[in-house]
C-alpha cells in the first residue's frame, strides 16, 4: 500500500509539473492542444486559466494530500498497535506455556512417583502385617504341638505311675500276708504293709486322675491345634490372595501412572511445539517496524507536496513555477534507511526482505 501511495503521489507531482511546464511553453510558443495541456479545450490559454488551474492544484495539495497522509499515518498507527497487541498476546501465551508446562511436567512426574511409592509402601505394610500375624500364628501352633508332645509324655508317665502303684500294692499285699504268717512278730510289719498298700492305692488313683486330666488336656490341645491349623490355612490363603490383589492393584496403579506420565510428556511435547511456533511467529512481526518506517517516509513525502505547491505558486505569480518532482523523489530517497527501500525505489517493484546481517567491530 505504501508503495502504491508513493507511486500515485509521484505520478501526480510529475503530471502536474509537466502540465505546468507545458503551460509555460505555451505562453511563449502559442496555443496548446487539449491533449498536451490537459484543459480539455483547444485555443489560447489565458493567465486566468493558468491561475484557475494553479488554484485547483493548490486546493488538491491542501485538501487531498492531508487525507492521503492521514490515511497512511492512521494505517501505520493501527498496524503498530495491533501488532503490539498481537505480540503481547503471543508473548503472554508463550510465558504461560513456560510457567505452566515446564514446572508441571516435573511436578507431575514427581507427584505420580510419590503417589505410587506411597501407595506401594502402604499396601506392602498391610501385607506385611498379615504376614507377621501368620508367622505369629505358626509359632503359636508350633508351641501347641510342643505342648501336645509334653502332654503325651505326661500321659505316658501317669501310666507308668499307675503301673508302679499296682506293683507296690501287690508287694504290700504280699508283705501283709508274710507278716500275718509270722504272727505277733510281724504285726508291726503288717501295719507298714497296710500303709504302703494304701499309699500305692492313692498313687494309683492320683495317677489315674492325672491320666484323665492329661487326656482332657490332650483333647483340648488337639482341638486348639486343629482350629489353629485351619485358621493358619485360611490365613495362608488370605495372605496369598492379598499379595496377589496388592500386586494387581500396584500393576494397575503403575499402568495409570505410566499412562499419565506419557500423556504428560505428550502434552509437554505438544506445548513445546506450540511455544516454538509462537516464538517463530513473533519474530515475523518485525515486519511491522520496517513497514512502519516505510509508511513514515511516504507520509513525510506526501506532506512535503503541499509545501512545494505553495512555494511554486508563491514564487512566480501570476504564472506558477514548475514543481520539482525530482527534488521530491530525492527527498523521499534521502529518508530511506533500509536497503529494500532503495531497491524498490529504483526497480518500482516489490523486493524480498534481506536476511539478518551481523557485523562485529
Amino acid at each position: 500500500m505504501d508503495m502504491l501511495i508513493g507511486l500515485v503521489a509521484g505520478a501526480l507531482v510529475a503530471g502536474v509539473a509537466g502540465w505546468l511546464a507545458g503551460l509555460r511553453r505555451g505562453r511563449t510558443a502559442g496555443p496548446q492542444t487539449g491533449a498536451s495541456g490537459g484543459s480539455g479545450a483547444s485555443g489560447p490559454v489565458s493567465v486566468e486559466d493558468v491561475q484557475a488551474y494553479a488554484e485547483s492544484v493548490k486546493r488538491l495539495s491542501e485538501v487531498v494530500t492531508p487525507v492521503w497522509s492521514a490515511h497512511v499515518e492512521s494505517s501505520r498507527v493501527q498496524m503498530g498497535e495491533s501488532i503490539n497487541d498481537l505480540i503481547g498476546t503471543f508473548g503472554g501465551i508463550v510465558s504461560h506455556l513456560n510457567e505452566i508446562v515446564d514446572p508441571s511436567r516435573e511436578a507431575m512426574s514427581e507427584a505420580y512417583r510419590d503417589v505410587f511409592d506411597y501407595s506401594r509402601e502402604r499396601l506392602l505394610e498391610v501385607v506385611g502385617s498379615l504376614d507377621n500375624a501368620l508367622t505369629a500364628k505358626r509359632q503359636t501352633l508350633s508351641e501347641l504341638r510342643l505342648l501336645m508332645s509334653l502332654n503325651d509324655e505326661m500321659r505316658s508317665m501317669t501310666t507308668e505311675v499307675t503301673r508302679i502303684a499296682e506293683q507296690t500294692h501287690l508287694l504290700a499285699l504280699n508283705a501283709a500276708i508274710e507278716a500275718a504268717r509270722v504272727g505277733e512278730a510281724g504285726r508291726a510289719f503288717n501295719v507298714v504293709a497296710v500303709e504302703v498298700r494304701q499309699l500305692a492305692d492313692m498313687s494309683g488313683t492320683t495317677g489315674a486322675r492325672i491320666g484323665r486330666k492329661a487326656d482332657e488336656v490332650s483333647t483340648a490341645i488337639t482341638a486348639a491345634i486343629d482350629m489353629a491349623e485351619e485358621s493358619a490355612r485360611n490365613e495362608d490363603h488370605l495372605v496369598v490372595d492379598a499379595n496377589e490383589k496388592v500386586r494387581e492393584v500396584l500393576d494397575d496403579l503403575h499402568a495409570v501412572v505410566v499412562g499419565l506420565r506419557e500423556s504428560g510428556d505428550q502434552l509437554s511435547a505438544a506445548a513445546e511445539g506450540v511455544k516454538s511456533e509462537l516464538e517463530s511467529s513473533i519474530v515475523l512481526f518485525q515486519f511491522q517496524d520496517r513497514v512502519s518506517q516505510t509508511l513514515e517516509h511516504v507520509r513525510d513525502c506526501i506532506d512535503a507536496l503541499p509545501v512545494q505547491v505553495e512555494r511554486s505558486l508563491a514564487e512566480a505569480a501570476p504564472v506558477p513555477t514548475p514543481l520539482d518532482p525530482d527534488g521530491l523523489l530525492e527527498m523521499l530517497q534521502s529518508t530511506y534507511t533500509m536497503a529494500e527501500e532503495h531497491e524498490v525505489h529504483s526497480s518500482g517493484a516489490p523486493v524480498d526482505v534481506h536476511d539478518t546481517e551481523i557485523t562485529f567491530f
Partner: protein
Amino acid sequence: MGKTILVVDDSASVRQVVGLALRGAGYDVIEGVDGVDALSKLDGRKVHLIISDVNMPRMDGITFVKETKKLAAYKFTPIIMLTTESADGKKAEGQAAGAKAWVVKPFQPAQMLAAVSKLILP
C-alpha cells in the same frame, strides 16, 4: 540472578520481540523507548549489555552510544546496534561511537543470542 540487558528502540513491537527472545534465553531485560529514556535507565544498576536502535526520536542511537561511553560505570558495557540501517557510512559511525556489533533487522533470535553471548560482560 540473570544478566541484565538494556533494549532501546522506539518501536514497541521490536522491544517486545527482542525482549521475548532474550527473556526466553534467561536474561533480565529493561527497556528504553529512545536515547534519552535509555540514559535515564543507566542509573548505576548493573547492565551487562545494551542493544540499541539507531533512528529514534529525541536522541538517536549513535548519540546514545556516545553519551553512554561518557559514563564511567558503563564505559565498557558492550553495545549492539540493532537497526534497519545497512549503509556502510552509518556502520562506521556506530563503530566510531563505540558499538561492538551492527545487526541489520530483521534479526533471527538464534543469531542475535549468539552475538549477545559472544559480547556480554561476565
